C-alpha cells in the first residue's frame, strides 16, 4: 500500500506556500499533520500531483489571546491544543472535545487546521468550532480573508476553501456561554464518532437559558447546527419536558445515512441520547457558573 507518485514541496514560510498554491492550483494539495490525509493517499483514494508540506511554517504554530479573541494557528497540533493553558482556561469545550480525537499518538501530529479543512462531518473540531461560532482566517496570493464557520462547511469533506487558498488561523471569541459539554459515541475509544454533540448554554442566575448553541456530528454531510432546538430553548429553564422537546427538535434536520457501522435508526437514537446528555451537562455547568 503506497501512495501514487507526487512532487513534494516544503515551503519555509506562508508567502512561499501561497505562491505554490497559486502555481499548482487544483493539482496541489496541502499536507499538514497528515493523520487523515496519508491513509487516504496510502489507499489511493486520492492521487494529487503535488504535495505542499506546510509543517515548516513557524508562523502557523501558535495559540494566543488578542483583543478578547483566542487565535489558534492552523499548525497547532491537537495535542498542544488539548494541553494549552489558554484553552483549558477559556475554552473548556475544546479541552473536553479534543481528547476524543484519535489517540495520543495521532494527536501528537494531527493539526487543528487540517482537521477543520478536512471537514469530516463527524470530526470533533469542526463540531466544537461551529458551536463556538469561530471565524476562519484564509490566505492566498491575493491576501487574507475571514469567513464565519457557519458558512464554511459545504458538504462531506468539502469546504468553501478554493484550491489556491490555505486555512491559516481559527479565531474563537472569548465571551462564550458559561455552560458547555461535549459528548460522543464511538465503537471503541479513538474510532471515528458514530455521532457526537457539542453544546453551549448561557444560563442566568434564575436558571433561564439566554442563549444556546447545539451542534450534532455524524448525522448529515456537514456538522449540523440544531437551530430549531436552539431557538426553542431560549428563555426557558431546562425542565424534563423542555429537555424532551429540545431533544426532539434537535434531530428534526438530522438525516443520517446507514452504513456498516450503524443503521439510520440507530444513529438517530444515539443522536438523541448524546444531545440529551450534552444539554443536561451544559445546563448543570451553566447553573454552577463553571464555564
Amino acid at each position: 500500500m503506497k501512495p501514487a507518485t507526487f512532487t513534494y514541496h516544503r515551503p519555509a514560510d506562508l508567502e512561499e506556500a501561497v505562491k505554490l498554491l497559486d502555481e499548482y492550483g487544483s493539482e496541489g494539495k496541502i499536507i499538514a499533520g497528515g493523520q487523515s490525509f496519508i491513509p487516504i493517499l496510502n489507499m489511493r483514494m486520492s492521487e494529487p500531483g503535488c504535495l505542499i508540506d506546510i509543517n515548516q511554517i513557524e508562523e502557523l504554530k501558535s495559540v494566543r489571546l488578542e483583543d478578547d479573541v483566542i487565535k489558534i494557528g492552523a499548525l497547532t497540533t491537537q495535542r498542544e491544543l488539548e494541553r494549552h493553558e489558554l484553552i483549558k482556561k477559556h475554552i473548556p469545550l475544546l479541552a473536553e472535545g479534543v481528547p476524543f480525537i484519535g489517540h495520543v499518538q495521532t494527536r501528537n501530529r494531527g493539526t487543528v487546521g487540517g482537521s477543520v479543512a478536512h471537514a469530516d462531518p463527524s470530526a470533533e473540531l469542526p463540531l466544537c468550532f461551529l458551536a463556538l461560532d469561530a471565524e476562519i482566517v484564509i490566505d492566498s496570493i491575493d491576501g487574507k480573508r475571514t469567513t464565519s464557520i457557519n458558512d464554511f462547511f459545504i458538504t462531506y469533506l468539502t469546504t468553501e476553501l478554493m484550491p489556491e487558498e490555505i486555512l491559516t488561523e481559527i479565531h474563537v471569541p472569548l465571551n462564550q456561554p458559561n455552560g458547555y459539554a461535549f459528548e460522543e459515541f464511538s465503537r471503541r475509544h479513538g474510532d471515528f464518532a458514530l455521532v457526537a454533540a457539542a453544546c453551549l448554554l448561557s444560563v442566568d442566575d434564575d436558571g433561564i437559558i439566554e442563549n444556546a448553541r447545539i451542534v450534532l456530528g455524524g448525522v448529515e454531510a456537514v456538522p449540523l447546527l440544531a437551530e430549531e432546538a436552539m431557538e426553542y430553548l431560549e428563555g426557558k429553564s431546562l425542565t424534563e419536558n423542555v429537555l424532551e422537546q429540545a431533544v426532539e427538535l434537535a434531530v428534526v434536520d438530522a438525516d443520517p445515512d446507514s452504513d456498516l457501522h450503524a443503521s439510520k435508526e440507530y444513529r438517530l437514537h444515539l443522536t438523541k441520547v448524546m444531545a440529551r446528555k450534552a444539554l443536561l451537562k451544559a445546563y448543570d455547568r451553566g447553573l454552577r457558573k463553571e464555564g
Partner: protein
Amino acid sequence: MSNLSVQDKVKISFSINGREIEGEAEPRKLLSDFIREDLGLTGTHVGCEHGVCGSCTVLYNGKAVRSCLMFAAQADGSEIQTVEGLAVNGQEHPLQTSFTECHGLQCGFCTPGILMSSVEMLNSGEEPTTQEIKEMLSGHLCRCTGYKGIIEAIEKVCKPNACKEGEN
C-alpha cells in the same frame, strides 16, 4: 524553491537513535518503510500502514507518532528514536525489562510500538494514572496479551510507588 519532477528523489538527513544519517527517497516513501528498508532497522513493525494499529510508532522529536503516517522526507532535520535505540550498551531499558517480567508480550509484534509510546509517557516526567495508560494504549492493537500484562509492565516503571503499594 526546488522544483522536483515526479521521479526525483529528495535528500533526507536526520538523526536516528543518536546517529546522523543521510539518504534519498522518493517523496512518497513512508517513514516506516525508510526506517525498515533503507536503514535496515526492522524493529519498527508495520501492521496496517494506515494509522490504525500503532505497531509502527516511533519517537519524532520526542513525541510518539505513527511512522506510517509520515513521509520519510518529512523527517528531514528531526530526531527519530526507534526501539533499537532503547537499550544502552547492551543494557535493556527498564521498560523492556518490565515487559518481560510482567508478561507484557507474547508474539511481540505490537511491542516495539507500545514501548515507544510508553517511553514518551515516562519521559514526560508526569506520573500517569492507570486510566491515562489505558488511553495511551488505545492507540495500539495487541492481538495476544489482552493488555493486562502490558498495563502492569508500564505501571511498574511509570508509577513505581503505586505498584509497591499494590504488592504489600
